[in-house]
């Protein structure tokens, strides 16, 4: 069933691609400000996004390909931790945000990643954002630790600051590139399986169900 849902988002849109990105991270690490900074650079303050920053859409052009990003903010409080799987179901990418001055928030990121890997395997592209680099003097999470960890789980690490507007464009762009790459690979894989048997057979079945019954019944009735 998961496959059938995956198809319309990737295969259906050949001209433009749509990706769902979830923002994960503890409360108060700056997920919302990150998104706001990213979207408000393009749009003015009167835009609807100022009303709420929990769901944001963004259109990008990367290598002459149109990409629609849907960024889903999640509630980061500890009490809502268990709801994570509902949020990141079917998402293409995840941005995990931690506060470089808060060791705990980095620990949370590790938990999230463990969970994500368990639930979605390698289907999801991961980026880790060490936010609030403007407070570098209070840093408790070392750069080395963070980058090593990121490498170990196949994620890319960025340093960001919503306040100074640094590293934000890069993190979203980087994630998009990763997702496009993954989607292309998936499409190629699909083509291979299609040539073997899998999907072709399925479409034929659908055709069978759709068209012939009406014809055959018509013949029966008239004769």
């Amino acid at each position: 069933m998961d496959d059938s849902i995956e198809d319309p988002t990737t295969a259906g849109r050949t001209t433009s691609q749509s990706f769902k990105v979830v923002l994960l991270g503890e409360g108060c690490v700056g997920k919302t400000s990150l998104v706001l900074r990213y979207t408000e650079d393009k749009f003015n303050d009167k835009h609807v996004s100022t009303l709420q920053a929990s769901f944001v859409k963004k259109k990008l052009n990367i290598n002459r390909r149109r990409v629609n990003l849907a960024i889903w903010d999640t509630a980061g409080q500890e009490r809502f931790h268990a709801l994570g799987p509902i949020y990141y179901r079917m998402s293409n990418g995840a941005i995990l945000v931690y506060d470089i001055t808060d060791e705990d928030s980095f620990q949370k990121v590790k938990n999230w990643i463990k969970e994500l890997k368990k639930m979605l395997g390698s289907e999801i592209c991961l980026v880790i954002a060490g936010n609030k680099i403007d407070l570098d003097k209070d840093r408790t999470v070392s750069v080395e630790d963070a980058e090593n960890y990121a490498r170990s789980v196949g994620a890319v690490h960025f340093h960001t600051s919503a306040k100074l507007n640094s590293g934000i464009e890069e993190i979203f762009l980087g994630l998009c590139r990763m997702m496009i790459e993954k989607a292309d690979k998936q499409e190629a894989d699909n083509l291979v399986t299609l040539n073997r048997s899998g999907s072709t057979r399925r479409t034929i079945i659908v055709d069978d169900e759709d068209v012939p019954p009406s014809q055959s019944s018509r013949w029966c009735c008239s004769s």
Partner: protein
Amino acid sequence: MMSFKKGHFRIGEAELKCKKGNGCDYYGNPQWDGFCSKCYKDVQKQRRINMSPKKVQMNKISSKQDSKKIGLTEKKSKLSYLKMFNTIKSKDEISEKTKKDYDPLITKQLDQVDSEYSLILSEPKSLRVDLKKQIRNFCQMMMSHLQSPVDIQSELTQHFYQNVLDMLNNYSHEELSHETKEQILDYTEKYSMIKLYKFLFCMTLADEDEDLGIQKRIRQLNWVNAKHLDCDIDKTNAQIIELVYKAILELLDMDSATAPQDKLACVVRCCRHIFGVLQGGNNGVKGPASADDFLPVLIFVVLKANPVRLKSNLHYVTRFCNASRLMSGEAGYYFTNLCCAVSFIENINAELLSMNTEEFEQYMSGTLVSDTWDSALIICEGMHQMCEQLALLADLKRRNIMIVEDALKFKKEMSSFRENLMGQFAVLKEVYTIVDDNDQIEKKMSVSIDDFDPLCSNLPQWTMTPQVVQPTERTRTNSSCTDGDSWDIHSAETVSLHSLDSNMVPENNTNVERILENTINPQPHLNEIQEISIQGWQIPSIPCETGGKIITNTENNI
């Protein structure tokens, strides 16, 4: 459908014979309503004579009424059936349902959808035809899959959406814009789901159980207030309270919407109000609300709204809404949040509300009570529940009245149909007597003779043999017959002739006595005259060939 077809192949020879049955050994033909050609011609003739246009109309109405009646009772039986066995349905019932017309309400909704999207659909005509065909096929297919597990139904639905999307992508006649495609997909989804709503929504016992479970759970949690959830709601601000109520109402509205996207639209409106609440929280100075603020308020709203059939609604949307809509897009996001809220409520415990277990238990058992505003909200919820029940009762009442009305109408129609039938029957009787029923004619003949001249029955029996009468005598009697006022002539013949044309005059008592005495004498002549007079006034109304018959019949009888 299938069973219907099968039935056609098993026909005995008796059924193939002419429908007229007795005496007719020819085979019938469906084109001729199951009659053989000869009988069909007869029947057609009869019909042309008998069927007045009024009766045709009447027939139509009554049959329409009948089918409506059947639909109603069937629905009723379906309901009770569902209550007992829920997912199990007989094959017959399903096939009946597919054939059955949809509710007038649903038809109305469908028409609305049609008109709503008429602009997009009107443009490419061939596309519209294709689309309608696809939708029809899909609905038929779903009807045959009513017994299948919901997962399969859901998968079929998603495949259908995908098929339509493929069709639009490969549409060769003209390039469709992205918006048009979206709208056509919207239309497809809305139309087919409204059509199938009755069969897809809340169809399993499990769904119903879950609904009741969550409702009970929320009622138990009615003491949970904004503080417990850490939400930022300004209770003193009337505007914000208003917004909370609006959000609650929108959430309650979700149950009354039928199409998945309409349900989603309710959720979206509810969430917009919540963002309003969050904005107004600090007189609008607060920045854009994040999910951290949003989710607690949504949970609060769900708790206070306690919508009916909440779980069924969520399941219905997840299963039958276009998956791409749920995966991306604002509505999908809000819906996901709603799912999260419900999941949170299901798993709520002391820890999640950051209070100790003891306090939580006390609240749950009702020993601790919440403050006034929360009580007000509880009452509000109770009111909504009551409204819901009242609406249900009103609906039941309306249906009951409808049934009674229909029954009365049906009764009236039956009686008028009976009257009509009797009238038709009477007409038919007359037609039959004239056309070919010999016995009837004979009876009528004898009756009319009696009516005309009571004296005839008094006449002695006399075998009828051709009589040779003198031409001169005949003309004389005939002439006297025509000028019937000549009472002074007291010959027996003329008097008896008089008696044929008019009843006896009471003043002439003596005359009558004499007539009675004399009638016996001129027997041969009298009978001859009688014969002539019968023919004289009866012939014009009798068809030629039957006229001859009458004579021979009377001859035999006498």
